């Protein structure tokens, strides 16, 4: 199946500064793909290159089967995007802002009211954009991205500024869009959100992809047994490393994360007790995306 997004060695330099450094990505059609990275990692610049807004210094972006640089109109015809802070005409109402986009994209204006209802902005559609709260602006930006019923939806921090209930509504909306078979490219710093919504993720740091894969596979690497011992953490780690079924031991918040099958918990306890290292706590440990993110962005 043709990829919804194919980025090949995308690089963007601003003078001597390399903002994006050889990013290669494949986003399959119909999947929800998470794009993570600390502030300034190059996420928005990469999105800019995928949308033809930023010209790559080298590499290429193919969206929905079309090269963005060579056939921008064909590439973006089926793409709806919301990039960073929502930007609209402040003197126009929310509805008129969408009418502008509908007209320029050749979309029937009746669709405007449909998407406004979808993001629950119908009641304030005739108020000027400048009077909108941050949450309303986010919703309007999402409505704009959905206006022409795109096949691929690129969302950059879609729940930014929304209250918890609003965040939940937007996540439900993203889920329902994914169920309709649309591809979602979700850039977010809200890791629990990405963990809930995305099947695959790529993590960007200083312009480079430092990890990419299925969320469950990435997190499987972080599964193990968490052991808290009363004293001498270093010696306990040394003892555990000797066991052939332990693939690694690392300190995590004053405890030891032992990379070993959970079924070995009793063996770990026996091993430590035999060496006079009393165990205060032992339990199965499953890494969260947040832990994984912090681990890879710190280490690489």
């Amino acid at each position: 199946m043709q990829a919804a997004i194919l980025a090949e060695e995308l690089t963007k330099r601003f003078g001597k500064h390399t903002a994006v450094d050889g990013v290669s990505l494949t986003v399959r059609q119909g999947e929800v793909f998470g794009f993570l990275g600390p502030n300034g990692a190059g996420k928005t610049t990469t999105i800019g290159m995928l949308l033809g807004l930023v010209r790559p210094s080298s590499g290429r972006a193919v969206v929905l089967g079309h090269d963005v640089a060579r056939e921008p109109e064909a590439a973006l015809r089926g793409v709806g995007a919301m990039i960073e802070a929502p930007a609209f005409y402040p003197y126009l109402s929310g509805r008129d802002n969408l009418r502008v986009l509908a007209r320029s994209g050749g979309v029937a204006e009746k669709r405007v009211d449909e998407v406004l209802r979808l993001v629950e902005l119908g009641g304030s559609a005739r108020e000027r954009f400048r009077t909108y709260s941050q949450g309303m602006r986010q919703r309007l930006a999402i409505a704009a991205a959905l206006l022409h019923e795109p096949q691929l939806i690129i969302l950059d921090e879609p729940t930014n500024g929304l209250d918890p209930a609003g965040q939940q509504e937007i996540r439900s909306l993203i889920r329902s869009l994914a169920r309709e078979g649309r591809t979602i490219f979700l850039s977010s710093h809200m890791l629990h959100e990405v963990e809930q919504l995305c099947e695959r993720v790529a993590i960007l740091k200083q312009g480079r992809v430092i990890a990419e894969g299925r969320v469950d596979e990435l997190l499987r690497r972080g599964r193990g047994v968490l052991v808290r011992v009363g004293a001498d953490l270093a010696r306990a780690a040394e003892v555990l490393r000797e066991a052939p079924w332990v693939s690694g031991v690392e300190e995590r918040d004053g405890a030891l994360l032992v990379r070993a099958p959970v079924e070995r918990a009793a063996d770990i306890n026996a091993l430590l007790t035999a060496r006079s290292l009393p165990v205060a706590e032992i339990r199965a440990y499953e890494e969260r995306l947040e832990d994984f993110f912090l681990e890879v962005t710190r280490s690489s």
Partner: protein
Amino acid sequence: MWNLIRAEWLKLTRRPIVWILLAVFLGLLAVQILTQFALVSLIGERVSSPALESQIEEWRRRTVFPGLFGVVFNHLNGLGGIFAVVLAAAAMGSEYSWGTLRTQLARQPSRGRLLVAKLVTLLALLVVAALLALALGSLLGGMLGGLRGSAGTVTQADLLQLPLALLRALYVLLPYVLLTLCLTVLGRSLLVGLAGGLLYLVFEVGLGALALFQVLGGVWQLIYSLTPGQNINTLALMNSHAFGLSPENVTTMDLSTLPSPLQATLVIAVYCALFLATALYELRRRDVFGPS
């Protein structure tokens, strides 16, 4: 393209500054017509100097038909130029300052078409302004003519001149609009476009001082004849002549040395092509980011 023009029209016509500028433009036209009428009525009868007679007669022609049409087109090419610069800077520059250019181009990536749609919409708005100015001028001319007992006459030939004069007036405004769009794109800023466009207008007036080049003759005279102002004046003067006005009688400028209409048309076309090509090239070449 039609869809883009409709979108630009919606943006432009919903913008308060457009209606404020239009109101000021029409208000100042009314003030000009009423002032001319008052001056001609009060002073015209009392001056007996033969030297001033031709000037008084010119002012009188400006208060009756068809001269009033010439006044309207002069107003469009004079003060209208300033408003066209402000409108063009606002239409393009705000897209940068609000970050809406990125929203637009993420939806419709043809930057060239977007710029052309903006240009067409601005020109369409200038046509509306010109038609409203003509309507206001005709209304005031009729009312004032009623007070004086004669509003002049409008022949079929005068009416046929109107569309041609309108085209000339728009053509004269085109370099101002394009230069402003070009500077706005180059500076990615409303302020740069606005300041640049207005400075150009001031500079153009300043170029009048370069009339000295004509005295030097040769290549200097040629350079002077290729300046935008000289060529714009040629077409503006044609609009005055088309409605029986003779600005030569009321100006100290030597209008006899203006370039030919053919040269004026070609030189303005070259300037327009240069400004448009630069704007298109820069808009296509540059990266588009969020609000500036």
